[in-house]
């Protein structure tokens, strides 16, 4: 209790200690320790199969850890899942709005689940769609929208209840560079409103946009710092080069 209260007041949004997840004999996430400050944009980098999604699933409460602890928004991921669920938003790797519902119906559903009043839902729907430039599509089926729009909408829906922390699992995979750029503008806007952003990606250019990044190889966090610190340490021009050097030692690779 005191620990949780402390970490929240210390401005720590997420702290993980020796967080581990095994699937049989395979160690997907291997004793990772890190913390994320409130209001930060934290890039959680790693190759495919490095264990990013497994780690994120433990943090949002979809998967129980095999070992270790973590606190999200001051709540224990083992014992206080319900508290965590109220303070986070989550956008999974798979697009997960309902394709057979309209934009308005999707927003209303999630707003309703998070306990917003009908007035709040109406107001946020309008604001959200104005921001996204999607006002004309409010009654279109989400399945009929272009992929980039879907992703931006999914992000906004993950924020509909104004969570303290939002987890984004490869939010920009498969979208064009312009949409990726716009997506990052949305991320910055959310951060500016005080939302902590925890984002995984394997686009290294996106890593440059983050306040701090961690690099995960074979289930372990091998490096953590600001993009500038890491580039200096490895004497490289880009985060991409840092990543390539670190990932060269990976054994699990794509297949894992």
């Amino acid at each position, binding site marked *: 209790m005191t620990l949780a209260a402390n970490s929240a007041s210390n401005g720590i949004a997420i702290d993980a200690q020796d967080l581990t997840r095994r699937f049989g004999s395979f160690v997907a996430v291997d004793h990772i320790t890190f913390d994320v400050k409130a209001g930060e944009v934290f890039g959680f980098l790693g190759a495919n199969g490095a264990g990013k999604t497994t780690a994120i699933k433990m943090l*949002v*409460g*979809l998967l129980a850890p095999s070992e270790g602890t973590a606190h999200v928004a001051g709540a224990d991921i083992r014992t206080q899942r*319900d508290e965590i*669920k*109220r303070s*986070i938003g*989550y956008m*999974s790797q*798979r*697009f*997960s*709005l*309902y*394709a*057979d*519902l309209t934009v308005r*119906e999707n927003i*209303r*559903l*999630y707003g*309703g*689940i*998070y*306990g917003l009043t009908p007035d709040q839902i109406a107001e946020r729907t309008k604001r959200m769609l104005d921001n996204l430039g999607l006002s004309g599509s409010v009654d279109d089926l989400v399945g009929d929208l272009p992929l980039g729009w879907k992703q931006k909408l999914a992000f906004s829906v993950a924020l509909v209840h104004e969570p303290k922390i939002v987890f984004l699992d490869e939010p920009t995979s498969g979208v064009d560079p312009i949409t990726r750029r716009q997506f990052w503008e949305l991320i910055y806007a959310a951060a500016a409103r005080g939302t902590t952003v925890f984002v995984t990606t394997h686009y290294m250019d996106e890593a440059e946009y983050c306040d701090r990044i961690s690099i995960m190889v074979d289930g372990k966090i091998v490096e953590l710092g600001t993009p500038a610190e890491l580039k200096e340490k490895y004497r490289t021009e880009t985060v991409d080069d840092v990543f390539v050097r670190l990932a060269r030692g990976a054994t699990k690779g794509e297949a894992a």
Partner: protein
Amino acid sequence: MRSLRYLLRKEFLQIFRDHFMVAQLLLMPILQLLLLGNAATFEVKTARMYVVDRDHTETSRALVDRLQASRRFVVVGASPSVDVGNEWILERKTDMVLSIPSDFERDIARNRAAQVQLILNAENGAAAGVTESYAAQIIGAFARELTDELGPVRLMPVKLIPAMDSMQTLRAAPIPAPAVRAIDIRARGWYNPDLNYRDYMVPGILVQLVTVVGSLMTAMNIVREKEIGTLDQLSVTPLSRNVFMAAKLIPFWIIALVELALGLLVARFVFHTPMLGSILLVFAAAAIYLFAALGIGLFISTLVDTQQQAMFVTFFIIMVYLLMSGLFTPIRSMPDWAQWLAQANPMKHFIEIMRAILLKGATTRDVLKPMLILVGFAAVVLTLAVRQYARRVG
């Protein structure tokens, strides 16, 4: 509880937006009922009969006429040779050979007893049984008519079922000596006096239809959310598991009851199925039964990951339930272990309840026992399903 409203709204929107789903839920069952109600019957409409009349008397001809007049039999051929008749059976040109011995009329006059031989094609055992019993009934009635004229007369139909691959044995087999037993069998069907198989089948088919909606649609619907990833999305929200499950079960529970109502209307106005008991009681039983069916669907959804798997597993279970429900074969003719197993089949109990209420006018008290079994079954299945669901998702 407010989130339940939002979720229910979402479920109904999704169900009714999917035109194929709507057709599947409301139109297909009705078509199925119309089709099966007309087709699935044990009744033998008209059996083909080959006549071997070696008596050639007024009485023998009267018997043939009598069989034909019933419209259950149509004479497809005749000759004095039983061998030809056997060949007709072998070639599947007739369902039955009626063989009247040469001293038929004389035996009746002298002994007040005679026998006729029925040779049946029993490749389809059920049909042969029905054909034989029709013939026996008509021959019995004919004997009673003769009795009115002559005093007591016994006519003994002697049944012979040839094996289709061994006609040789048949030819060599002697006609058995008449067993002189004065047994006058008068079958009378109670509750379904016309032995109308359709009345018997339609309630059963209705049960099958609501079961498919209850189990299959529920399982597929939940697994679909797993497949597209929305289940994970819902799992990170503060939505409680119970609300989620209620939102999944309530729509199909309602739709299945609506479907039952439609089916009963078809039964009433198309098939003229008798409805002697309380329709309200039918719905009460259905409401309970559906909890079991939905529970099975929910349980399956926790075991599988794709809609395809859900479909296979559900069909497997429904098929076993259906074949062991007494809808097509009487449970009393099953081996002991199967009868014992059938007791654990909710479909069997619900079919019994439906038939009892509709055809016999059973009251709550009459069907209390199977109703309680259903309550127990629903409670167990639903509890198991919810537990399993919590384990898998929690």
